[in-house]
């Protein structure tokens, strides 16, 4: 049967954001990623694919683009008679509201939690890009009799982007969590996905706030590692942590491995996004494309190598795009060259120009820039 066990909360309050121009006009959650998606598509799709039918989004700042993107939630099949998608904006009666910790928002929205039927709550953020089945997390959570389960990834190489580090014992019991700048050495990184009973969350919210603490992870979870059974669930699939420009660029380039492309976008289940109804990509007689990801609606008349093109990009004859990411409706006019660059939406590169960055510091063009 299909009765809901888990409700989802996507917490966008105070997300780490070092994405420079990419988040000048939007929140981290709606940063375009992977040729046709926005960051939030991954966590939303993972929830839906795991049978979660009720998702609340704690929006905070610059969320106009988010409202536009998610609409009624229909693209993720979250437009139901019962439950579905809830956008929960901050209550702005108080000017100081925006600087307060996220526990205030949980508290202010406690009616939303109390009214919902599911027994468990899964709290995630938008910048941890992966494809995961949360039902497996719940299975382990129940088997270990955990109070809180934290999804972690394992990597022996240093990760791109900023993430908290986690230390756990051989049973998976978490003994320490440190912020990304902490000195602890560990192969486990916190994916900022927390599963617990709704009852426990409500209790943590009220007791922490009563003590003057307002931060969910630091105050309600870190400081209670001794009192509660907090277990790590190790996700072994691909993970992209997208909260700095270098991690944005580096993780995008990793998608150019067919295995990563296949597993991130389709396994165990597909990632959904807003429907655009563009035609298939069209390649003309002079097109020269290799090792690239191309979205629908693109028109390729020039050369594209080692790059990611979002929907509706037009590469004119004689133009060259290499090692770059060109977002929606970008136009590269004839005989121009782009290398190691990130172009936000609607950027136009005029004729006979050359734009070059380096892979450790890609050139970044803001939305609607004409170069």
């Amino acid at each position, binding site marked *: 049967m299909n009765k809901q066990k888990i409700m989802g909360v996507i917490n966008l309050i105070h997300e780490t954001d070092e994405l420079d121009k990419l988040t000048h006009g939007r929140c981290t959650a709606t940063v375009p990623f*992977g*040729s*046709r998606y926005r960051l939030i598509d991954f966590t939303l799709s993972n929830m839906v694919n795991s049978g979660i039918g009720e998702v609340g989004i704690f929006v905070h700042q610059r969320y106009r683009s988010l409202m536009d993107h998610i609409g009624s939630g*229909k693209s993720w099949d979250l437009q139901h008679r019962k439950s579905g998608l809830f956008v929960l904006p901050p209550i702005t009666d108080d000017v100081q509201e925006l600087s307060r910790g996220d526990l205030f928002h949980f508290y202010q929205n406690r009616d939303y939690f109390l009214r919902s039927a599911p027994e468990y709550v899964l709290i995630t953020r938008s910048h941890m890009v992966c494809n995961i089945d949360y039902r497996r997390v719940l299975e382990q959570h129940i088997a270990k009799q955990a109070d809180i389960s934290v999804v972690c990834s394992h990597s022996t190489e240093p990760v791109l982007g900023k993430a908290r580090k986690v230390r756990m014992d051989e049973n998976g019991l978490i003994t320490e969590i440190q912020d990304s700048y902490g000195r602890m050495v560990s192969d486990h990184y916190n994916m900022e996905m927390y599963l617990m009973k709704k009852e426990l969350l409500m209790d943590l919210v009220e007791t922490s706030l009563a003590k003057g603490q307002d931060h969910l992870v630091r105050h309600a979870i870190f400081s209670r590692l001794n009192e509660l059974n907090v277990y790590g669930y190790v996700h072994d699939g691909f993970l992209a942590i997208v909260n700095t420009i270098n991690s944005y660029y580096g993780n995008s380039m990793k998608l150019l491995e*067919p295995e990563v*492309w*296949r597993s991130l*976008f*389709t396994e165990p289940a*597909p*990632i*959904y996004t807003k*429907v655009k*109804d*563009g*035609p*298939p*990509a*069209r*390649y*003309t*007689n*002079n*097109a*020269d*494309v*290799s*090792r*690239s*990801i*191309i*979205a*629908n*609606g693109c*028109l*390729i008349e020039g050369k594209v190598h080692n790059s*990611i*093109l*979002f929907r509706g990009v037009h590469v004119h004859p004689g133009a060259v795009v290499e090692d770059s990411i060109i977002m929606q409706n970008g136009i590269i006019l004839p005989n121009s060259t782009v290398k190691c660059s990130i172009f936000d939406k609607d950027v136009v590169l005029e004729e006979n120009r050359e734009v070059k960055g380096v892979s450790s510091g890609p050139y970044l063009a803001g939305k609607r820039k004409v170069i």
Partner: protein
Amino acid sequence: MFMVRKEMIAMLLAGGEGKRLGVLTKDLAKPAVYFGGKYRIIDFTLSNCVHSGLDTVGVLTQYQPLELNRYLGIGSPWGLDRRDGGMTILPPYMQKAGGVWYKGTANAIYQNIPYIERYEPEYVLVISGDHIYKMDYELMLQHHKERNAAVTIAGIEVDWKEASRFGLMHIDEHNHITGFEEKPKIPTSNLASMGVYIFDWKILKSYLIADENNPMSTNDFGKDVIPAMMNDNLLLNCYIYDGYWKDVGTIDSLWEANMDLLEDQPSLDLGDPQWRIYSVNPNQPAQFIAANASITSSLVSEGCLIEGDINRSVLFYGVSLGEHSTVTESVIMPRVKIGKHVQIHRAIIGDGAIIEDHAVIGSPDSKEITVIPVGEHVKARENLMGVE
């Protein structure tokens, strides 16, 4: 009861069997056949309706309706899930006196008079789900109203060589139709009926009833109703359309219409942001083009993984093409898996087919288009050269 009156509603004939499309329509109604890398044929007429401001569309289904009904759903992808009107699927139904199939195009409308009457329209647009074109029916309605005609039929000039495949019209200098022949052996005109009619509903209703009571009638618009109106000297108006229009009723014309999209300046623009062709979204990631791949003069859709060479071809979503494989002048329908060292020339590969390593399908010099049925498994030994 409050009822919203509609000036014009559309009746979309989607029951075509599409016999001449052979194996492609074995389990599929013709309007549900794939076209253009991501669409089905019916997407074009449905999108035309929506862009022309029509929000009430009755879709008449009959032959192999399962896949078509599943595809259409409640019309959401075309914006046709509306409170008043929207899309309604109208299959033949049982009556007290026993059920009957739709005997012909006119009979199909006749059986659905109660549906049309619900909206009390002044005009009824009758269209077919078998054609590829972009047309603003509102402009045609204006023409119809200006001429105060009983019926307006859209016409297009076709190649004389092909003319005998169509219903042909003769017109005078006022665009009044003076003669009408259904698929004559020797054509005397090259002005073909596009199968797009706007009728004054009161007049049409009386003719449908009369036609139903005529035991000699074949209950067809082109053969019976239009000639009857002409005999009665009603004003039959022709609206001349000069855009792209293609009847994709045969394997050759389906293949050709797909190839038409590959010109550097195609005559049918699928990318017009003001006239998007809506379709059901397949939810696939963006296409992946591997290091050794080459793609020229082609349309490739989402979810494809391309490691081989493609020239002058249309690839639908979710197709994979292995290394050292070549595809030229072909149409590859959704989710086809093509192995390594495969040669495909001048072919249409049905959706879900599996083409094993080293298989050869069709030939660059073949006159005939090779067709691989839906879901077929082609092994290397089977050398299919121009066999349909």
